[in-house]
């Protein structure tokens, strides 16, 4: 199990790196999907199958399809790739990489210090427990999220409505 965990994590890290470096937009999105799948496997191994499945259904299955849809419609050709190549100069990537390296160092320090290992063994969380927690102590969070989604829905309807008066 530990081996599978590290393998999945490695795949997630590498594919995320490739998302940043690949010049073709669709290829970048595909690597992002692979990264999501790997993260889902990590969740699964950590005993959260419900979250793993939601990760695939919502992120990899729904949102990324939309992304791919839009990128396909934009029809980025060879020129866009050349433009992207121009953007990926050391001057641009050196700042963010220093910042992420700092974060990575912090993470490694935390792993090394042994604080995280006190959490104990892995217990598989059934969907029922997840929902009990969500609609119990975290009810306010769920309600807040739904309130956030409602304006999104209304906004989408507003943007997508047909202007009948302007046609005439």
């Amino acid at each position, binding site marked *: 199990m530990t081996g599978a965990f590290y393998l999945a994590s490695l795949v997630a890290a590498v594919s995320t790196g490739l998302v940043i470096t690949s010049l*073709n937009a*669709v*290829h970048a999105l*595909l690597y992002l*999907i692979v990264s999501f799948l790997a993260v*889902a496997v990590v969740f699964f191994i950590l005993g959260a*199958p*419900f979250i*793993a*499945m*939601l990760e*695939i*259904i919502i992120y*990899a*299955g*729904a949102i990324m*399809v*939309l992304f*791919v*849809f839009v990128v*396909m*419609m934009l*029809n980025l050709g060879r020129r866009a790739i050349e433009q992207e190549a121009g953007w990926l100069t050391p001057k641009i990537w050196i700042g963010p990489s220093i910042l992420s390296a700092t974060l990575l160092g912090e993470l490694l320090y935390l792993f090394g210090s042994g604080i995280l290992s006190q959490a104990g063994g892995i217990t*598989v969380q*059934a*969907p*029922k427990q997840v929902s009990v927690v969500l609609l119990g102590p975290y009810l306010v969070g769920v309600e807040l999220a739904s309130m956030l989604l409602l304006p999104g829905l209304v906004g989408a309807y507003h943007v997508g409505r047909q202007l009948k008066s302007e046609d005439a």
Partner: protein
Amino acid sequence: MNETASKLLIIIGVLVTLLTLSALLIWLERRLLGFWQERYGPNRVGPFGLLQVVADMIKIFMKEDWVPPFADKVVFVIAPAVIIVTILMSFAVVPFTPSIVVADLNVGLLFFLAMSSLSAYSVVLAGWASNNKYSLLGGLRASAQMLSYEVFMGLSLMGVVMLAGSFSLQDIVKAQQGVWFCIPQILGFVIFLIAGLAETKRIPFDIPEAEAELVAGFHTEYSGMKFGMFFVGEYLGVILISAMITVLFFGGWQGPWLPPVVWFSIKTFLFICLFILLRAALPRLRFDQLMGFGWKVMLPLALVNLAVTGALVLVGHPLE
């Protein structure tokens, strides 16, 4: 060790059975379509034309496996594999009998939904990688269609989950001991049937490949075994959706007298025939009709079904 061996045997058995069946389904579909159109269908090769499948296989293996020079080669090759892999993965959670199931996950239903949402990529990427206008249009249509129909496909199943109180397919089948879920969840069944038709991209929802307008849509550029993969993938999808309808709404392997695997096969077979009948009888929808039907009719219906089921379950069993 013994357990591992039996597990391996189940996996290999399921794989071989499914691939054989999906090939035979090509023959079955052509024969049944023939009967419903007052002709015979393939009846020349072997008894009842059964060896037609073998002949087709030989032909498709011998064909040139051509990758167009203008295509995105890696994605072009990956796309047909994705559909087969995701659908075969979905079969891992399907309980064929109480004992024959590859993996009885406690989130089995969600796993099925996840895999079916991933199978959308196959079509989308095939359309994009072919670098062909018709294919791209097919891919765009596929992504919009699969995305919309997935939403209420998931919602229509939540009523079943509420009644069974579990995402595990084995538990769902066991919960249908008394009455099959197609009776309390008749609306959910109809919605899932329609969404399943759309997910397998079959007539009347086959606008991603629409032979009449898009040549063959997303697989215009595919030839040889890569085309064969899409072909087999479609029939595997039909088997999968039929099996899922059986498991979720028609009591799975349950039934009197006969052994469970026979019951499961009979029910699944009937639904496969229903799929083929729909293909014989219905015309193709237009794209805007399809989207309008999905978002304006099916989604509200699924939500109403969900709300009513939830209320009834709450009245029947107040919170423990």
